[in-house]
């Protein structure tokens, strides 16, 4: 059962990603991106990462994708159907991307050294477990992330608002 679910959503995520990078219309790209994020969220659930799945849906699908659409809206010029073209060297880029994939696949498939557990762990992954870890062992990175987000927030506002000419 879970195998079938896995393959459905894995293929969905990958196909949506394909759509992101091949679509000529950047608005379509943004929607494909949201779809891909949702597919990945399902994969998280399959790996017992319920909380992460929720975060993925909320932040990526909900916030990031929508923000991208807003940015597209603000910067769009000309015909929307031609808004997401490839550059001149797209073929070389494809070649490099394929060879990187081949490299990773080679490593993943030939490596006999993963110390995979005989019985995979199944429990945890809830918000409670996460919060315990975040507020005890990873306290300082957590706070740092908070600061980072604040700084990014302020920085984004200032950048987007633009600095007024002083005189």
């Amino acid at each position: 059962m879970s195998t079938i679910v896995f393959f459905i959503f894995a293929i969905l995520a990958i196909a949506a990603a394909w759509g992101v990078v091949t679509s000529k219309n950047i608005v379509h790209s943004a929607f494909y991106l949201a779809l891909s994020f949702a597919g990945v969220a399902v994969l998280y659930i399959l790996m017992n990462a319920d909380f992460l799945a929720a975060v993925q849906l909320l932040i990526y699908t909900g916030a990031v994708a929508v923000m991208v659409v807003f940015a597209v809206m603000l910067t769009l010029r000309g015909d929307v159907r031609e808004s997401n073209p490839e550059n001149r060297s797209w073929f070389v880029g494809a070649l490099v991307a394929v060879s990187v994939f081949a490299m990773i696949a080679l490593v993943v498939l030939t490596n006999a050294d993963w110390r995979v557990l005989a019985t995979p762990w199944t429990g945890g992954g809830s918000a409670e477990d996460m919060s315990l870890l975040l507020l005890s062992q990873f306290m300082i990175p957590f706070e740092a992330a908070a600061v980072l987000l604040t700084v990014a927030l302020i920085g984004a506002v200032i950048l987007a608002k633009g600095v007024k000419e002083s005189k």
Partner: protein
Amino acid sequence: MMNLSNLSVGLSTYLLVGAMLFCLGLYGVLAKRNIIALLMSIELMLNAVNINFVAFNRFLWNQKIDVHYLLTGHVAAIFVIVVAAAEVAVGLALIITIYRNRRSTNVDELNWLKW
């Protein structure tokens, strides 16, 4: 390697999914002209990384030994998401500013950091 009774889908499969997402994102970074498309491709790559984190945490972590750090992979993924969110915010703001100044979101034309 793969025990189908307990484990429906193996580690390698997740890793390959991650790799595919990563390389699609990479292609997007290398081949697209619109800077917003680049940003989206980067998000794809980050997602691929997150899949790897979670998969490793799921399949390789020994509960009996490291009970206090059970969800370290998840924590790493959380931080990636946080940083990605910040990056998107700042990145989009930058794009808007650039657009305002240059009337373009074309990466080819953003080449004034050269000799």
